[in-house]
């Protein structure tokens, strides 16, 4: 079989969104993201930062409970969950405006809660009735209160949109201008969406470890490995910005390029497994002009450890009697979907039957994402589908040819019943993962890839008898 034949066999070259399957409407059944105010979780992800929400009484609870609780049971963190202040806007704030109420809430928050940064996020109510949030927040800023605001009413977009808005608000209103010299070897990392990505804490930890390993000083900005607002204040001093993932973070990187003249490197695929990770690290090192010997020494060390485990795993992979899945589908955010697909194809030699990207990437980024999926390997191209409605997604998957063996789905809780119907396996890798308890588990880099292998094959073996 030639490479060309393989490509047509494995690559499922037919168009994925077959118009005969379902008519596409705006309706979304079984959601796969929150709304812009869901970015309150991005604030919670910054150590000792607290969101202040100006919205209806249920918005803060809803975004938290769904993005952070019934998704890996990640928990509320320092200022999230039931800690988060909210105006709990009522009819009065709707009809007469909610500016005064917000002033009152911020004032009392400062008495009750301790934080290094407060971020005011608005919901649909103030954004519709036109509350002037800037006018409310400004007097506090003038009194040197570390507080910023972002317009995040749900109709502006999803929590990815909200994340970029919150990030930008902090940079523009809190970090502020900088005209000093850049600090060589320091990098700001913009990658996974905190909390929404079920494994973000472990993944950011591994990403930071890798980048530090090749000699960078890393502003990881979110999660347990971040130094909090000090790290944010240091953003302008960094040598460059690193965007890992197909699109999220690009807007921020471009903004920083304009604002501070910082260059950025865009690595579209989240690195999973030794091959991907080593290549990724070499690319970053070249961009940053790092010491080659140190970089290669780190990679060699990591590679050696990684392949020791892969070798041990090989006994199972080659000798297991009862069959392992061959064809897979990925249903997830562009970031994870691309990283996973590359790993599953290139490391494990599995066959992609369907890949569906569910995070509604901006139109202008879709060309790039599609191109990345068409170049998974020399001999494997995938026609990726962009779809957010789970009914449509499931219809597509039900009509997918998974060959003679039960498929394995890399998806979410929404796919549990589908996997059962297809007599296949399900690995919950994205929002919502309501049947996973996740602490520091990671699926990226060298270490995360091994954990992912354990998860995949424990799932397969565990269901066998």
């Amino acid at each position, binding site marked *: 079989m030639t490479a060309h034949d393989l490509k047509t066999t494995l690559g499922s070259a037919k168009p994925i969104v077959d118009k005969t399957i379902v008519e596409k409407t*705006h*309706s979304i059944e079984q959601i796969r993201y929150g709304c812009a105010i869901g970015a309150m979780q991005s604030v919670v992800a910054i150590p000792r930062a607290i969101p202040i929400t100006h919205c209806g*009484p*249920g918005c803060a609870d809803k975004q938290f409970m769904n993005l952070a609780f019934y998704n890996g049971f990640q928990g509320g963190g320092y200022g999230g969950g039931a800690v988060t202040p909210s105006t709990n806007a009522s*009819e009065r704030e709707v009809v007469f405006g909610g500016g005064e109420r917000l002033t009152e809430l911020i004032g009392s928050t400062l008495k009750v809660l*301790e934080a290094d940064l407060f971020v005011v996020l608005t919901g649909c109510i103030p954004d519709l009735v036109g509350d002037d949030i800037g006018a409310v927040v400004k007097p506090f800023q003038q009194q040197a209160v570390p507080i910023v605001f972002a317009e995040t009413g749900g109709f502006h977009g999803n929590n990815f949109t909200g994340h970029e808005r919150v990030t930008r608000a902090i940079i523009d209103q809190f970090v502020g201008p900088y005209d000093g010299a850049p600090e060589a070897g320091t990098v700001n990392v913009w990658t996974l969406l905190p909390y929404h990505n079920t494994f973000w804490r472990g993944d950011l930890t591994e990403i930071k470890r890798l980048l530090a390993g090749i000699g960078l000083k890393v502003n990881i900005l979110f999660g347990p490995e971040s130094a909090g607002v000090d790290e944010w204040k240091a953003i302008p001093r960094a040598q460059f910005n690193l965007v890992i993932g197909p699109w999220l973070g690009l807007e921020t990187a471009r903004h920083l390029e304009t604002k501070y003249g910082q260059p950025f490197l865009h690595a579209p695929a989240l690195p999973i497994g030794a091959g991907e990770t080593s290549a990724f690290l070499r690319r970053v090192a070249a961009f940053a002009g790092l010491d080659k010997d140190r970089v290669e020494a780190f990679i060699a060390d990591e590679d050696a450890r990684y392949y020791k485990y892969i070798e041990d795993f090989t006994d199972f992979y080659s000798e297991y009697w009862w069959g392992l899945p061959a064809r897979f589908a990925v249903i997830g955010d562009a970031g994870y979907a691309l990283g996973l697909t590359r790993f599953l194809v290139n490391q494990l030699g599995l066959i992609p039957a369907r890949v569906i990207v569910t995070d509604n990437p901006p139109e202008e980024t879709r060309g790039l994402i599609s191109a990345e999926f068409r170049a998974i390997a020399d001999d494997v191209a995938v026609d990726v589908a962009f779809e957010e409605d789970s009914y449509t997604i499931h219809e597509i998957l039900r009509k997918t040819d998974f060959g003679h063996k039960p498929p394995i789905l890399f998806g979410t809780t929404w796919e549990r019943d589908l996997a059962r119907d297809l007599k296949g396996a399900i690995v919950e890798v994205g929002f919502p993962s309501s049947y996973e308890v996740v602490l520091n588990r990671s699926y990226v880099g060298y270490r995360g890839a091994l954990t992912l292998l354990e998860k995949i094959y424990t799932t397969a073996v565990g269901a066998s008898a």
Partner: protein
Amino acid sequence: MPINLKTPVVESREQRLGTVIGWEGSAEELAVESCFKRGGGCGGQKARRVCELQSPFTQGSVCSEQMVECQAGNVRDAVLIQHSPIGCGTGQVIYNSIYRNGLAMRGLPVQNLHLISTNLSERDMVFGGVAKLERTIRDAWERHHPKAIFIASSCSTAIIGDDIDSVAAAAESEIGIPVIPLHCEGFKSKHWSTGFDATQHGILRQIVRKAPEKKQEDLVNVINLWGGDVFTPMLGELGLRVNYVVDMATVDELAQLSEAAATVTFCYTLGSYMSAALEQEFGVPEIKAPLPYGFEGTDAWLRAIAKQTNREEKAEAYIAREHARVKPRIAELRELLKGKKGYVSTGSAYAHGLIGVLRELGVEVEGSLVFHHDPVYDSQDPRQDTLAHLVDTYGDVPQFTVGNRQQYQFYALLQRIKPDFIIIRHNGLAPLAARLGIPAIPLGDEHHVVGYQGIVNLGESILDVLAHKKFHQDLAAHTKLPYRKWWLEQTDPFVLAKEKQAAQAAPRQPAALSSSVRRVGAK
């Protein structure tokens, strides 16, 4: 004033019942202020006025739309459309998880829920969202052929004034199934329980069979959530069948609500509206008794059902048998739990029941935090005054607090009482208690504590959770709370509310108001 089913918009709890979300005192004081069983001097007006504390600092609460999701959204053969931007739809995750586990616990086929968001954008906020709603109704029908379609409003669509009523009416006549608008925008009510009422209002208006051909004299409506099936065996002893609503029911089971012999509930917070309306509109009697918690409550509740359905002999035999069965183990549990201090933090009527059960077990209960307080229920029948029943049967609760799940207030409350464990139902408070070294019993199955067996169940659960203490004490030594020192030193959880009250003491009078204005007069 009776329940008004003529308008599609449900009247909020604060309007109907005088519901409050901030109050502090003893249980007896609250019972007196509520003028329910203790009433007399309040002129028979349905909504009592209990003095409410309003704090300038508030933490995220819960909204009515969420309660619609977890009720209307969990009817097995219906679809709930959330007419909103995508954010309201985020709730699909939690209510799917709870729904699936509830189905599993009840032995029903596990499936994902059917909620569809109209996914409105900025453009729709400006130009209106009804066209998308019409299309989503079509999607709902074509995809699932449901027996009913519910439509939940949202803050945004209520502000821009999308007319969901006429869209629903048009769709209903076209498709031929009930298409039910539920007005549940979060800002409409300060307490989420209005969302229960909104769902029930819609079901009563458009699903419940108007003129039932037959009455089912052995059928009892049980208004509940996802709890395990404890009512079937209990009421089975009396030769009665159970019709569980609203969660996990079918549309047909909702339709037959009007055919039942009686309506009961595990909690009047949840069941008040539906029960009262079923009696008012369809003549299905609502059982007017304390809730089935503890010996006295369960005895009275069973007897009231038995009287209503003419099964008194069976009930007496069952009561005697059960007393004899559970009492030995309860005596052992009382011994094991001696000197333990408990704290209850749940929905209002449910808490009244739980405190009683704890006291049956000999657990000390000095305080409780309930998430709201309804001075009366819709029936206005003093036999349903669960708070007075608690005080009359088990004595006063000296530190009785009303607060809509405000974690910052919970700190001071726990400091005052220092309980050995807490019982909790809503998220958000247990994590704080945990950081203070106090374990919590999260009551996922709300029926766990119902009836005679419930007393035993709760005792066993307390023993289990006391063992968790090791985890929590270890955590308490390694945690940092986000609250300022000043706040942690406060002993009064309402200190900010009281400051605000004092600052506002001067009465406000609209400036343009003429003194010669004559009011038509309040009724």
